[in-house]
């Protein structure tokens, strides 16, 4: 379910590291909780994001969720396709539904994130309670 080479946050974002660039998205569990995504608000390319701070929102018909940056850095690219086809977030959250690419300012922050295994355990514990 959760790609093994990704890292995860407690706020249900995932990160895929490629050199000093991180691709960020929300997890399958997050999109499932949210329901049909109707709108995605993303930062501008070139703006800064800070670890654990909100950088955008994802909306379903009846909910708005903040998306938190797993890592700090500059926004190198945003997924423009989500503007017209927000449903991609539901269909392929770990792939085509990526949100932004961040040029990292502190790669050390990665160590604080969960592995796929840890995240899967975290989600099942959260759903139980």
């Amino acid at each position, binding site marked *: 379910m959760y790609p093994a080479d990704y890292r995860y946050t407690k706020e249900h974002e995932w990160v895929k590291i490629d050199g000093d660039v991180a691709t960020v998205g929300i997890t399958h569990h997050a999109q499932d909780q949210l329901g049909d995504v109707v*709108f995605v608000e993303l930062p501008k390319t070139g703006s800064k994001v800070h670890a654990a701070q909100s950088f955008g929102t994802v*909306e*379903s*018909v*009846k*909910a*708005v969720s903040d998306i938190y940056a797993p890592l700090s850095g500059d926004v190198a690219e945003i997924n423009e396709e989500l503007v017209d086809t927000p449903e991609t977030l539901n269909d392929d959250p770990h792939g085509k539904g990526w949100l932004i690419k961040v040029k990292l300012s502190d790669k050390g922050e990665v160590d604080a994130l969960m592995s796929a295994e840890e995240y899967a355990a975290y989600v099942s514990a959260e759903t139980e309670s």
Partner: protein
Amino acid sequence: MRYLPKSPQERQDMLAALGMERPEDLFAHLPADVRLGRALEIPTGKSEYEIIDYFKARAAESGEGYPSFLGAGAYRHFRPVVIDPLVTRGEFLTSYTPYQAEISQGVLTTIFEFQTMVAQLTGMEVANASMYDGSTATPEAAMMAIRLTGRDKVLAAGSLHPEYRQVLDTNFQHQAFPVETVGYDPKTGRLDLADLEAKLDDETAAFILQSPNFFGVIEDVKAIANLVHSVGAKLVVMFTEAVSLGALAPPKDADIVAGELQSFAHPPSYGGPYCGVLATKRDYIRQIPGRLAGQTVDADGNRAFCLTLSTREQHIRRAKATSNICTNQALVALMGAVFMSVYGKEGLRELAAQNVAKARYLAEALAAKGAKAVFTGPYFNELVVRPKVAPAKVNERALENRIIGGLDLARFFPELEGAMLVCATEMTTREQIDRFAEAFA
């Protein structure tokens, strides 16, 4: 009590089902020191007959039947008879906000049609389902411009309705900047463009204009829009007299058009309930405050409507919502929608033309008694005149003839002491105007 549908026995049976004996038992869990230990001091319940009597007596003490030359944001227009039978249908009158779309298609369809007609009327692309009134739509429009621009300075025309301005000031008292005023040309009554140009800068989020303005004068929206847009600010155009839009070019160059729809089918009713509107460009739709109805399909693929883009609103976004508005003015909006359906494309223009004609006759009749128009700018159905005697004197004389006169402008504009704002609509007769003119002698 005639509104309570239980027999004493049923009430007793229901209490028994809960293991209780007396009504008091339902409240036994309230802490003793918060329970009210006495009866409310409100007279015994009255019959329908007595209630109607009470209100008829109050109506008789409230200028019932007097012709009036007051406008200033609350206008007397004929209400087509079909309006009340339609809006008092229980399905409209006694339904809640249409959150359950499948059993609220009636209200949702009327809102969708209302939004369409308001957009057509104002020359904008989209409109919301309604605001409380024109005055509270003013800060909502200003806040919207602030969100759109990321700036926080707001300018407002000095000829904006003074009570709209007061509401704006109340709402802005805790914002970064107080609202600044742009003056009017004392000769034309139109906006002082030089003053606007001087006050606009790259921190300006919005300029709020009213047209026709509080003095009844029609503004040059296009020229003003050019100035406002040259610094990247948004132009908000307000209106208080919706009938004017039957004749006047809509403020297409504005970014937001907001105002008051009371003229469309709601009597002045001592100030409310009225119906605020807010219209704008399609691109700004996510910054609109309040409810929006949208078109979609149901599970069978048939056209259907529902409230949409609700994530802007307080019940979802809570502290980050575009506005705290929840309840709006749906039923008054429905009256407005029926009014627009009745008058339609031709009728609204004819109605507006009659208002223009009556106001011209009023202006001439008063001028003949020495009360000249104060401003030279074009006006719709109200204008400012300066009588030879004090406005208070004129109004006093009119009242002796059982006529309610105009608005003494000294109340809001000290510099216009001695001038008054008078209004004529299609309901004002020639005979009333001639009698009112006598008071100016």
